[in-house]
């Protein structure tokens, strides 16, 4: 028995494929166990056991397999699962996707180590999220309200200003939130330009001392991307549920994350699901997104804002699709609005906040908020219908009423959505909504007169 406790080094690398190594005759390894991989030249890497079959282990090497050989390289199981050290000293720091400092400052002495996979929150212990967060963005506050503990992603397209919007939200929400507010950035596969942009913007918001950034760049190992959001969320849970912070987590870009997931899947020769993404991607994403929330009897919260790039602007692509199925709504950016110079280019029709009703109304935002939102939606939807019609039948085929709706939708996009960098209070948002609604005839907007 005692022999089991002595960890052996295995020099039985059998196959090397993509980011994976297959090790034979590995006794006693456990699923998810971290290993030390020693390369012939003295370099050390980190591995994690993905699968065990008899005495063969499948191990993913976090830094990649380039330079590993099947004769001299060796694997040493550590008996530990993946963990990250947490501490209040993390505030203000910039770390890589594994949680190692990359800001040139001294190492962090953790208070404790936490498993990065976390544990599912007991549904019986969840607190219903109902606290309104003012983001200062009309299309969000007025129509798709965010609440604390919600997971609300931004669906973006290549080149659309999702990161700008996310940072504007972080900056403005911070002002409204004031108290124990923390921001965690988990960046996966971003360019050095984007990385620079994030750091500078966070500095500008003055939120840096309340921010922790985990950054994995395009040229960093792809497997690291699978760790980055888990590490970011583990730290977020610690701050929220043990230290009482209201933590806003921005994860970007989930599309890079999913691509890494696919890479591992195909290296394992798994049967791929839709568009060759793994069949378990829904479950995998859920184990990230579901970590947002509030705990009964607890003070803090984890609010999650993942950003993803819709390949080809296609909302039915598995990445936005599975995300939308898990998150509590979505904010969708539109290329057409962006081209028209509207910022933020939020396409409100496919947007949704599933938790909106819990966060609005008397005592939270304003009595009648729901009605205003519903009417703005139906008026805008009608205006869009008319806009489509115009392209076919021309303005002459329109009734007078149709023309008013057409004008409404233009104004709505220009003024309500296209607010620019302005930080609007909820009252300003709703008042503007009412002002716009007053341009469409009373007879139609029936419920408004109640």
């Amino acid at each position, binding site marked *: 028995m005692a022999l089991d406790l002595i960890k052996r080094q295995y020099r039985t690398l059998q196959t090397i494929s993509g980011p994976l190594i297959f090790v034979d005759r590995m006794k006693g390894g456990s699923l998810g166990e971290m290993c030390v991989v020693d390369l012939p030249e003295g370099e050390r890497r980190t591995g994690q056991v993905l699968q065990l079959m008899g005495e063969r282990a499948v191990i993913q090497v976090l830094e990649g397999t380039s330079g590993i050989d099947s004769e001299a390289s060796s694997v040493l199981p550590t008996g530990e699962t993946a963990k990250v050290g947490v501490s209040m000293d993390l505030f203000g720091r910039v770390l890589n996707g594994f949680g190692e400092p990359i800001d040139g400052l001294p190492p962090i002495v953790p208070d404790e180590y936490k498993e990065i996979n976390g544990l*599912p*929150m007991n*549904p019986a212990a969840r607190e219903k999220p109902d606290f309104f967060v003012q983001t200062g963005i009309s299309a969000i506050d007025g129509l798709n309200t965010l609440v604390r503990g919600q997971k609300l992603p931004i669906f973006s397209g290549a080149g659309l200003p999702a990161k700008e919007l996310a940072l504007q939200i972080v900056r403005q929400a911070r002002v409204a939130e004031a108290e124990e507010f923390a921001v965690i950035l988990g960046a996966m596969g971003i360019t050095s330009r984007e990385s620079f942009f994030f750091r500078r913007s966070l500095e500008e918001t003055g939120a840096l001392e309340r921010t922790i950034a985990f950054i994995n760049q395009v040229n960093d190992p792809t497997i690291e991307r699978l760790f980055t959001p888990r590490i970011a969320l583990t730290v977020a849970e610690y701050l929220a549920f043990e230290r009482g912070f209201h933590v806003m987590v921005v994860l970007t870009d989930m599309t890079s994350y999913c691509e890494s997931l696919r890479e591992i899947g195909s290296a394992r020769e798994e049967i791929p699901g839709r568009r060759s993404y793994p*069949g378990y991607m*829904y479950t995998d994403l859920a184990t990230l997104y579901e970590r947002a929330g509030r705990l009964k009897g607890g003070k803090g919260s984890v609010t999650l804002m993942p950003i993803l790039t819709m390949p080809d602007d296609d909302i*039915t692509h598995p990445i936005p699709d599975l995300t939308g199925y898990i998150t*509590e709504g979505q904010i969708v950016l539109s290329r057409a609005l962006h081209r028209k110079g509207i910022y933020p280019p939020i396409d409100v029709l496919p947007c949704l906040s599933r938790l909106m009703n819990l966060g609005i109304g008397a005592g939270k935002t304003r009595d009648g908020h729901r009605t205003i939102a519903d009417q703005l939606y139906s008026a805008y939807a009608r205006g869009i219908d008319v806009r489509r019609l115009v392209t076919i039948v021309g303005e002459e085929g329109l009734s007078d009423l149709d023309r008013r709706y057409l004008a409404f939708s233009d104004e709505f996009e220009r003024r309500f959505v296209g607010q620019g960098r302005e930080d609007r209070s909820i009252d300003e948002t709703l008042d503007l909504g009412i002002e716009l609604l007053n341009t469409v005839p009373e007879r139609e907007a029936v419920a408004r007169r109640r």
Partner: protein
Amino acid sequence: MKETRGKIFGVAGPTVMVKGMTGAIMNTVCLVGRHGLLGEIIRIKEDMVTLQVYEDTVGISVGEDVISYGIPLSVTLGPGLLTGLFDGIQRPLDKIRETAGGFLTRGVKVEALDLDRTWDFTPIRKKGDTVAPGDVLGTIEETERITHRVMVPPGLGGVIKEIKSGKVSGAEYICMLERGKFIELYQEWPVRRPRPFKAKLPPEEPFITGQRVFDTLLPVAEGGTAIVPGGFGTGKTVVEQTIAKFSRSDIVVYVGCGERGNEMSEILSDFPKLKDPTSGLPLSLRTVIVVNTSNMPVAAREASIFTGITIAEYFRDMGYSVAMLADSISRWAEALREISSRLEEMPGEEGFPPYLATQLGMFYERSGKVMCLGSEDRTGSVTVISAVSPPGGDFSEPVTQASLRFAGTLWALDPDLAYRRHFPAVNWLASFSLFHAELDDWFGREVAEDMVRLRGRLYSLLQRQTELKDIIQIIGVEALQESDRLALEVANLATDAFLKQSAFSEVDAFNTYEKQYWMLKTIFAYLESAEAALKRGVFIETILDSPVKGRLARMKEEPNEGFSGKARALIGEVESEFSMLEEK
């Protein structure tokens, strides 16, 4: 009981392979490894078995021990289910929270139901009576709302030698039969085996949801199956929750299968406060919740719908009408796929195992209205309403298609309607109900003799609306004939005033059939008066401008009680207002 032991050979995701398990039985449970995690045998190949493990497998090593006692995966049935909250394999989440805190740690062992709790038992059978399976021995007031009928379990029966009365618990028997057979308050039932009944009965009554578009246009029969497919955000969960709140069923079993935690927290905090419209008592008193959220172990997600439907059947057997709500069956199918792919089975369409449809059928076929087991003529029913989450909102995918084969009613949700906040976002022309013929009698008898005809008129009007909308796309609305413009206006009115129904409006969320009928009556009275005015030569613009339309649009805000009186008055106004309109 038969014990088999083996050693772990491999671990891949939620599946574990075990060697040396000669003699193990398919679908029985095992204790896995040093944490004693629960698993179920899903494949046997010589002495190697594969388990799906109901808890996270991280940390499991090759060589750890596995034991099976030959017991199938079962649920505990008895008083205490109602108001309960369980995970996919019936672990009580409230109690787990008490012992383990806010997060779900592994290997927590808690009984599904509190077997030591005492209940007040009123026997209705006595010593010397002969009883058979399904006979009611006595009753327990399980909640203020529901009387629990304690039944003779399937497979037992005979002459009663002793029956308890008053305080009883799971600690000892409740009834002793001749030849030393005992009946206990709690029974175990294998989740994958349907509970027996005497006979299936044909559908003849609607399952009343209180939602106009469902009850009037697209009804599901009590004991039938409805499926609700739709892309994300189209309103599946709200449909399920609204039915959980307002449907006219005795019992609701709500299965949150692979969906969101926050949605469940909403139900959990609202249901004890919300009143059931039939009894006026809190909804939680008639509800059992099974929840295995998307981030909880995937194998337990697979089991959750079987756990749910077994509990539903148990209440059906007592003679209750039960609504079994599954949100979402697609997540169950994906769990099946995930496990199947770990078994390296040959995949079928979209990677789902070839037996997907068979397994789905086994679930859906457990719905139905039945003559219950037992000597009395009790009927009970399980109506299944399941949400389907097609990838990309594309209904041609395998889970939607397989579900369609078993569904009596399709409520197809449409993102276009959802985008413009028309809820329930049911595409009325793409949806169907196969129950019309069976239910028409009931409608004529219980609602109104012309209800079926009004429904037919509504259908034609909506059909015409679609045609006219297509025409407008080509020629513009101004070019339509006057009668068509009128038809379009009234169809739009019916769409907004009747089909659209807010689940969050206190007054409008639940409608009786009477209110639905009178709303239709009013809308068609409006159409007829307007047509008459048009024939008389009144300008179409004058007709469309008449202010009474606004009152029709708002009639949904009137409560159920006294609606028919209000509707009659409104019809009177419609008629007089139109008769006063001046001709050209």
